[in-house]
């Protein structure tokens, strides 16, 4: 049975005990999926699954009262957000049903856009798109073109260690059991650049920011939302000005509050409407966390996140020896 049919069957089985199940449905064109909210068996027809199922639906879990019974379909990376939310007691385990599946990866629509642009095709004018095996075929403006999927996977998928959900109540399909390496080579390469160059890079990137907070609101772990420190007027921590300083200050707030919690789902960067590579900031923190505490967030619901714990003497932090 195709995985989508298995998934529908699994959801149909659990639906009677749930208020809503969140999955993906068709979006506004052939290159977009969009979250769908399933409350009846008839809604199951809307469900789709594939390389366009980009959104991390775990971000909706904390938007419902904790008492609601919610089902959520998760990719491997999304499942790590669920684990982190459980660790922080932001959701009730007994009120969440997690549907997992073997995720082959999702595309980076920016890469799709650019790669087809090189062939003289506009992704924004797409009429048909298909993902078969290792090729993506697109029809746009009466022209058809094809590209290897290898060029289109999101970066996070190329370094993915968790294709199969790390937590699930219903898992459909065969586990992929695949693991790529991730030694944070991108962070190391960026850090090797001179300070002035790094500063100029962020100045240019952040000058494009429109401060819409899509990065924050798409983040499954940014749970302060309406009470975010960046927007409170009393006290007024961040000025209302829209200079690069204020915008970068917010990115620092976001990254710091995510330290040791970020599961690198990449929603912040994907959500950015003007293509600012802000996941790099979170990966920098995660690289440090991995080196200092040998810890990756959102893997084991029973583990204690290092920044939620206290040790008098940390093993790898030299606090008094200088």
């Amino acid at each position, binding site marked *: 049975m195709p995985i989508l049919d298995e998934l529908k069957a699994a959801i149909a089985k659990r639906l009677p005990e749930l208020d809503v199940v969140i999955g993906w449905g068709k979006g506004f064109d052939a290159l977009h999926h969009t979250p769908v909210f399933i409350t009846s068996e008839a809604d199951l027809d809307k469900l789709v699954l594939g390389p366009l199922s980009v959104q991390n639906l775990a971000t909706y879990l904390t938007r419902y009262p904790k008492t609601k019974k919610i089902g959520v379909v998760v990719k491997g990376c999304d499942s790590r957000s669920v684990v982190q939310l459980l660790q922080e007691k932001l959701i009730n385990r007994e009120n969440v049903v997690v549907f997992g599946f073997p995720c082959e990866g999702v595309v980076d629509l920016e890469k799709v856009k*650019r790669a087809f642009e090189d062939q003289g095709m*506009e992704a924004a004018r797409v009429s048909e798109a298909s993902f078969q095996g290792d090729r993506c075929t697109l029809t746009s403006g009466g022209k058809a073109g094809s590209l290897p999927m290898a060029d289109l996977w999101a970066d996070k998928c190329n370094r993915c260690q968790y294709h199969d959900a790390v937590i699930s109540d219903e898992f459909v399909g065969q586990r992929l059991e695949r693991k790529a390496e991730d030694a944070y080579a991108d962070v190391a390469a960026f850090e090797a650049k001179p300070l002035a160059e790094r500063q100029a890079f962020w100045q240019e990137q952040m000058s*494009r920011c429109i401060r819409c907070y899509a990065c924050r609101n798409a983040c499954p772990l940014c749970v302060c*939302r309406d009470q975010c420190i960046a*927007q409170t007027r009393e006290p007024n921590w961040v000025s209302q000005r829209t200079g690069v300083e204020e915008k970068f200050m917010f990115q620092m707030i976001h990254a710091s509050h995510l330290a040791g919690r970020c599961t690198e789902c990449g929603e912040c960067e994907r959500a950015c*409407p*003007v293509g600012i590579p802000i996941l790099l900031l979170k990966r920098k923190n995660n690289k440090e966390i991995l080196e200092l505490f040998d810890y990756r967030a959102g893997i084991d619901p029973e583990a204690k996140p290092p920044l939620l714990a206290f040790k008098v003497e940390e093993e790898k932090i030299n606090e008094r020896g200088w």
Partner: protein
Amino acid sequence: MSAKYLAQGDLSAWLGALAQGRRVLVPVRENGAVVFRPYGPGTKPVLTRQADSPPKESVFPSTERLMEFSYSKDAENLGKVALDIKETVNAPATVVFGGRPCDARGFTVFDRVYDTKTIRDPYYAERRASTLFVTLACDTPETTCFCNSVGSSPVDADGSDVLLTPVDGGWLVEAVSERGKALLDAPALKDATAAAQDQAKAAKEAAEAAMPPAWDAAPAAAKLLEKFDDMGFWDDVSAKCISCGACTYLCPTCYCFTVTDERSGMKGERIRTWDTCMSFQFTLEASGHNPRPTKAHRLKNRVGHKFSYYPDIHKGPIACCGCGRCIKLCPVSVDIREIVRLAMELPTATAGKP
């Protein structure tokens, strides 16, 4: 004045001429995004697709300083403090080049609010007066384009000063406004041949024909009002919304702002900055009460304002230019076309209050 012709090879010559003594904003590529930036030698404008950010900043900056202020204490009497206030209107001469008809038309929605017989916002009005729009007519629509459903078209010159239409080897250049005519007096522009004019006419017709079928958005005004208290409807259509402000800040017609005093020590400035009705803080009252406590209330306002309240107040025009950015760039693909359609099609669960 008859129409002119600009050869592709003469584009930078004309841009260079326009940039003499003016700020010329052109769409350029930055890390995959296309945004408006000041033109300088070597700048390569991206004219093949709609920019991701509209040129809203040109007339309505995300931060506008309204005034500077400083306090000074009287040395003889420290209890006596003098306040000095300086108004700071800043309206640099600007040409926005290469925006699309929807981009330029967006400001016509602003005009009805910021520059009226009874209210004239000097900061807006002076920037508006100092900014000209050289607009590029569209040829083929993107999947999110719907300008023809909100009273416009892919070749609409409303709000523009000059309209460029793609023809063989370049563009037909037509003045739309008196101010636009002055821009056409440039050596880079040649008189257009009859053939080029015919080609442009055909290109415009083809562009209009290429649009998806238009739907009538006018009935939405009454239907949205009827659904004002139907929160079940609004909960459903806003379920996937993550309440960020991407849709409003990328919208060429969203004009809301907040005003704050940013003070440091004895001096400071009063600034006007973009605000978004998608934000909880937008209607948060000092008491802590919020009349729009959920994202459903807030999305209702965004759609209702554009397709019902604004057309009602201004007798017809819809406060949406159909550019589709709010759909295309929404992280979760909330589709305003679908919400308006559902509002018109679905029965209303709770009748609106009289």
